[in-house]
């Protein structure tokens, strides 16, 4: 496998001769000593030279030719040496090559196509996925080494043009990288340049138009806590075809309306339901005239009849199973279930819209200014007279209308009779995302106590407990033991009550025996006042912060804990109250002290938003103060 080293090149050309033009023909391009030192700062890998050419030949035909060389400086950069490309029904990967070079840039190995692995990407809930991954992972080369890959992809159906980011991740810098898109005459593309300090160059040779981006000398980026999604700050080019075609379905992406019209074609004729199901829906909703109520009932019917299973095959990646099929099988993927739910709602006389969205807790939604295929999930939008209900059709447990972190507060595309349109999904307000707790703790002289704790979780904080609501009594009990954060306790009883729909609310009541909730030492008695909601997390300090500070969602936690003091003790030291407030949020701690009783009230609010990088120390200050305040201790001493 190892090729013979061309000995003639073995003379060690030190970096000192590099500057001299005479030797240039003999200098090995991937010698690691050629890398400018500023590109080594914070870098585990360096892109030496990357060249990507995408040729759009017709609405359903294109090729991608890519070649890139990456120097891996140390083992933390080794994942950048991996080759990972996915292909499927509409693409084929060919002409795979990989060559390895040592630190002097001498060839040490050539990898044949057979050495690349090829496996299915299916996993978890996926029953079938026709997409496969080609993977290669070089091992056993001492650092630094350089790996050069080249390959070609042929597309026979297309909706996207590959993105380009000259700095594709953290800890990697770039010497040289370019991206060219060649567009055959008569076809058009669109592009969006993000965080670039240079512009496209457009050339028009005969027969096609070339869009060319060239980047050089880009330093490595370090990850920072509370950064926005990478797209907000790394240099990137997004591109998309204007005219496209997949599996005979042609469309255009001139506007959201046009793109939505293409999707609407794929939905055509897919919403027929068996008569029996239509009858069931009529029976279920007859006598109801509140649209909200009907929607909830139909959604519960969907939840009781279906489950989520992913099957991705061919155009089926964009086209749902017919509603009839889902009705018969009782399962489907997000497309199939949303389309089925839409059909059920239609049977109940409610109009709803198939909605394409980018799902994920830390995703920010479709870019309105750039019409293209950006979604990875489907939900359903049900417009009512006053507001809108959003339905997550793959979840059998969500209260009707609750979509949670997964798809909240972002731009999505609804498909209407006229085509597509951008709308914003539901936002959960600070006052909706609450954890309100009240507790009374009876303390005994030996440090033990009893507590009755009632907590109400609502809005996005419903997810603090949503995972266990359906678990058995024993599992819930174990969960409490593990998650209450208390030692040496006995859970004597508990209950959960779920109410609410679009904004769910769970009330949790727990009776606790605390064998050791205070520390008794000699004549003193110590109580850490924050019984159940201590926060000791402090994000890392970063030197010269570069990215904005992003807080994803707002919330309020309020804890009111009344301690009934043990007989025979008096207060020796009472901690000071706390009041901190800044742009990121606030913490208020108030103590109400009476002779036999101390009430501790802690209200913590966190805001949402994007804040400039130089505000980060304020965020740290808030976290540090909170961690410190949460260790606040009340000291009692035995009365003489």
């Amino acid at each position, binding site marked *: 496998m190892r090729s013979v080293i061309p000995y003639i090149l073995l003379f060690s050309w030190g970096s000192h001769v590099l500057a001299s033009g005479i030797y240039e023909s003999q200098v090995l391009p991937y010698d690691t000593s050629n890398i400018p030192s500023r590109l080594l700062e914070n870098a585990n890998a360096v892109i030496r030279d990357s060249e990507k050419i995408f040729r759009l030949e017709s609405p359903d035909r294109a090729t991608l030719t890519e070649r890139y060389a990456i120097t891996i400086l140390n083992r933390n950069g080794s994942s950048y040496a991996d080759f990972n490309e996915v292909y499927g029904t509409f693409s084929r990967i060919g002409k795979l090559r990989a060559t390895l070079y040592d630190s002097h840039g001498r060839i040490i190995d050539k990898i044949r196509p057979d050495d690349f692995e090829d496996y299915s990407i299916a996993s978890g809930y996926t029953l079938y996925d026709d997409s496969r991954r080609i993977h290669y992972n070089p091992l056993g080369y001492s650092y630094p080494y350089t790996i050069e890959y080249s390959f070609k992809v042929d597309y026979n159906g297309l909706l996207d043009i590959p993105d380009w980011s000259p700095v594709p991740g953290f800890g990697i810098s770039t010497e040289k990288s370019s991206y060219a898109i060649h567009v055959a005459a008569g076809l058009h593309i669109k592009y969006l340049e993000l965080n670039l300090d240079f512009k496209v160059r457009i050339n028009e040779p005969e027969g096609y138009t070339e869009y060319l981006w060239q980047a050089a000398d880009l330093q490595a980026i370090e990850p920072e806590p509370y950064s926005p999604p990478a797209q907000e700050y790394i240099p990137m080019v997004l591109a998309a075809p204007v005219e496209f075609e997949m599996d005979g379905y042609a469309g255009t992406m001139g506007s959201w309306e046009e793109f939505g019209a293409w999707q609407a074609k794929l939905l055509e004729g897919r919403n027929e339901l068996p008569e029996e199901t239509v009858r069931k829906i009529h029976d279920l909703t007859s006598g109801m005239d509140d649209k909200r109520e009907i929607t909830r009932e139909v959604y519960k019917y969907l939840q009781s*009849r279906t489950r989520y299973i992913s099957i991705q095959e061919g155009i089926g990646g964009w086209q749902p199973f017919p509603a009839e099929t889902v009705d018969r099988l009782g399962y489907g993927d997000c497309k199939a279930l949303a389309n089925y739910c839409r059909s059920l709602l239609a049977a109940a006389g409610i109009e709803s819209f198939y909605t394409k969205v980018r799902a994920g807790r830390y995703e920010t939604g479709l870019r309105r200014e750039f019409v293209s295929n950006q979604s990875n999930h489907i939900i359903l939008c049900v417009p009512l007279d006053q507001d809108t209900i959003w339905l997550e059709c793959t979840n059998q447990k969500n209260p009707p209308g609750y979509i949670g972190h997964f798809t909240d507060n972002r731009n999505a595309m609804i498909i209407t009779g006229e085509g597509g349109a951008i709308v914003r999904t539901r936002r959960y307000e600070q006052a909706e995302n609450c954890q309100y707790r009240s507790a009374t703790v009876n303390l005994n002289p030996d440090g033990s106590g009893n507590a009755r704790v009632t907590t109400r979780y609502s809005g996005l904080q419903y997810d603090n407990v949503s995972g266990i609501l359906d678990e058995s009594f024993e599992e819930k009990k174990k969960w409490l033991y593990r998650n209450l954060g208390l*030692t040496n306790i006995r859970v004597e009883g508990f209950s959960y009550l779920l109410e609410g729909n679009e904004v769910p609310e769970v009330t949790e009541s727990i009776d606790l025996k605390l064998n050791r909730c205070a520390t008794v030492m000699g004549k003193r008695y110590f109580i850490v006042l924050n019984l159940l909601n201590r926060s000791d997390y*402090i994000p890392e300090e970063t030197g010269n912060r570069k990215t904005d500070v992003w807080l994803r969602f707002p919330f309020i936690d309020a804890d009111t804990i009344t301690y009934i003091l043990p007989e025979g003790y008096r207060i020796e030291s009472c901690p000071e109250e706390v009041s901190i407030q800044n742009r990121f949020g606030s913490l208020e701690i108030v103590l109400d002290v009476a002779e036999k009783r101390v009430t501790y009230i802690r209200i913590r609010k966190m805001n949402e938003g994007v804040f400039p990088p130089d505000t980060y120390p304020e965020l740290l200050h808030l976290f540090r103060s909170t961690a410190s305040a949460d260790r606040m201790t009340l000291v009692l001493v035995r009365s003489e």
Partner: protein
Amino acid sequence: MTISLEWMIPQNQNTMKMSVKVHPVPVFLFLLMNFPGLHAGSYMKYGKIETEDLKMSQYTKDTSADALILGDIQQVKIVYNNLEGFQMVLYRHTRIKIFNQNGYNWANQTIRFYESPTITENITSLRGCTYYLEDGKEVSVKMKNESEFTEDLSEHWRACRFTLPAIKPGAVIEYSYLLTSDYLTRLPDWQYQYRIPVVHSEMTVEIPEFFNYKQLSSGYVPVTSVEHSGGQANYSYSNTTQDRLGNRETSLHQGIYQTNIMRMEAGDVPAFIEEPMITTVQNYLAAINFELSTTKFPGEMMKNHTTTWEDINKTLMESDNFGGQLRSGLFLNSFAAAFENGDYSDMEKAQLALLHIKSQIAWNGSNSIYPEKTLRNSYTEGSGNVADLNLNLVVLLDKMGLEADPVILSTRSNGILNPFYPQLTKFNYVVARVKIGDRYCLMDATERNCPTHILPVRCLNGQGRLISKNRTDWVDLESHGCSYEEACLAQLALDDRGIISGSMQHMKKDYAAYLTRNTVQKKTSLDDYIRELESENAGLEIRDYNFRDLDSVQKPIIYSFDVEIRERAMVAGDFIYLNPMLFEQVESNPFKLKERKYPVDYAYPIKRSFILNLEIPDGYEIEEIPDGLTLEMPEQSATYSYVIRPAPGRLQLLSKLDIRKSVFYYDEYELLQVFYDKLVEKQAEPIVLKRIASPQGP
């Protein structure tokens, strides 16, 4: 008849199918036996669902069950096929009740099978059906082709995935299939415990008299009945002879052979419930495995497969892919020769050999007792699996004049070995054992940060088996006195604002050092590691730091900090309260649940000590300090001591935890929990300082 051993390419999941294939030499033709004729379905019949099962809304014996296996029937039979030779045929019929949505994933099933030029497995006659009641009437929905998919997992492994239609709470599903295989070394496992309860599970095995399998049980649930019986089968085969003139004559032979039938049942098997700090679920689920031990064909000598440990030793030593590799290694001569005349101790040689293999060959993450390549190829190409690395190491040690042999073992995630049932397929890892002076030492070349004298955590799983030319024996894999050892010595001064400053020195040894090196290496710089320590320990500010021997893998890591600690001491009125354990405080008991069924497995002993010398601020005196404490588990398996001594203007604290054994059994759990409760309680206690009444004026 001949029996050929064939070595297969290793698969994903690091398994390897070594086949025993039986070929007829004279054309030996058994009539294909009917299947599944054998005691078919006495417990349940496909398609006939009990109405009570459909009506059942919860399982009274376990009301928390999300789903319930109503019946799981496995019938395994070895039959003769005139084209393929002997084959295994499995008939599987499973019926599951689904109570609620958490149980829906039981409707998704995957059957893995194997296809290669020498081993063929096939799934046929797959059928499935869902039943439920609607308005009191039974409805059934058959599974169709649209719900079945076959996928290539890797070059040889396939997955047949299917999902049952129309699942709803209360539904009953069932499916059945036939799996034929010419892989006879191991029969399909009978697993009769799952994460949901099982009402009835049975396994019937019918094996021709020529084969002998042995069984290995695992788990904590007994089988409820075992019956043995005998059967008979007819065979016919034709024998072709040729005389000197080339005339062929074929004669047909017919006869009868005996079969051994075993039928096992397990009923009312409780759901398996996972608990923290166990090695792997596979160790605890009730199951029986069947491994081929001997074959004896008419007119032939009995042939052993893996009957005794000696046989395993012999099989491995004779195999080209293990013993044969150990006899190779000319390419290592030149490296070894460099040490012939030098003045090196055995220990130095062993360490140099290990370092050389570590730097020469990178581990590709795969476990196996067999190399993926030849030793020469892995050595020159610079990568390989565990066996590539460690067999190279054995050979190199041997060439350097040391006594070295491989030790095969099963990793923690692969399950515990049963010493009474030798089974080659249970092993998935190999390390090197070398004699240094009069001691034996185990070595593994996969981890750069793992010193010579300890094995990676994954290897610490009971015992391994020494494989050598002369003899085979058990070898303790325990950590040989090496533990997770860390110590912290703090010289600190507290001032009257509650700010603490001074220096802290840490020492990390053996597993603590190895794991710390791994953590540090994942950081871009030491600075990043320091920033992480600061953010994990609220109030800690590290001013200056110094690391010693971070790169000397053999040595402990010693590092010291100049620190300032804020917000730990509470200053209130005339008092200062401070928990002297600082960042070393164990704040909660790791064992929170009331009871536990399975052992607590720490992997290695643990030693943690903390020594604090604290100066108290001028103008303050000690008002109250915690009492000392000593805790001991029976036989000193764990001890804790907390000693605090006041002195004028200062105090000294010594906290020392010593967990001397790595596995605690379930009957020791309660004591261990109390041990930790007491420790957590003690470590929560603060010291109280009081301002000295200011001296009256002159």
